[in-house]
């Protein structure tokens, strides 16, 4: 009788462990979801947990957010493994191009052309117009510099020597 009793006890114990597995996964899932929902960049990530393995899916805007989602799952005590299937889809920038005002451009064009005495530059309505002459070997340096000034466009009428 004692023998049977201990078997019964073992049976009860092991089934409790088995049954205990499912709610545990649900607990993990809830914990991870809570962390994901807490940051705007990881809110779009979905999580599923099976036998302690977390699977992440969804789309985020950059790699940092993807790693953050992975860490949110990994940091939960008891999670054995994280399968991170989250994809990165960069947000397409639709902000209009910023063009500097003529007053700003006039000063910065003066700085940029200072070392090119044979180049004349004028600014009108955001457009830089270049006249005069330049050596071909110096043209790229000048253009690199002018392209950082945020003009609307550059009208290059330089005579190239």
């Amino acid at each position: 009788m004692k023998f049977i009793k201990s078997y019964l006890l073992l049976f009860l114990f092991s089934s409790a462990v088995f049954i205990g597995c499912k709610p545990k996964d649900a607990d993990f899932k809830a914990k991870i979801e809570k962390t994901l929902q807490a940051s705007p960049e990881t809110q779009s990530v979905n999580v599923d947990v099976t036998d302690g393995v977390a699977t992440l899916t969804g789309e985020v805007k950059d790699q940092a957010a993807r790693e953050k989602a992975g860490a949110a799952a990994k940091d939960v005590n008891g999670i054995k493994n994280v399968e991170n299937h989250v994809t990165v889809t960069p947000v397409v920038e639709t902000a209009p191009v910023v063009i500097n005002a003529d007053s700003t451009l006039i000063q910065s064009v003066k700085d940029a052309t200072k070392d090119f005495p044979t180049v004349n530059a004028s600014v009108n309505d955001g457009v830089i117009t270049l006249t005069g002459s330049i050596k071909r070997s110096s043209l790229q340096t000048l253009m690199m510099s002018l392209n950082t000034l945020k003009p609307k466009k550059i009208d290059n009428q330089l005579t190239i020597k």
Partner: protein
Amino acid sequence: MSLQDKYKTLIDTATASGVSNLQVREQDNVLYIDGSAPDGATKDKLWDIYNQIDPDYRAGDLIMNVDVAASSGTKAKVTTESTNLNIRKGPGTDQPIVGKAAHNEIVTLISKTNDQWWLIKTDNGEEGYAYAQYLSPE
């Protein structure tokens, strides 16, 4: 042909070379490409491609503002044509000159004030603003 097609090789190369914060926008028949290249060689490569597509930059249909990603402490070489690089008290050629860095000298970048002016320090301890175009991050 749209401008993005015309400069497709350039845009594709920028993407493949790891230019960060890359933005390609078209506005009033001008294409604007902005971003940060991982190094000076990548920036030079992009400019060479630009020149191949639009020889001598005559078309006036592209503004490419790609800088070189350089953080504080980065060493940069003075790449003037041959002369010394002026180090100024403030960011602007109207600012007084407080020092000079020789052609090919290596200086240390402290911070980027904007796309044109960087705060630098020479090995002699001279500190001030220099024109970014004449500095090539190492």
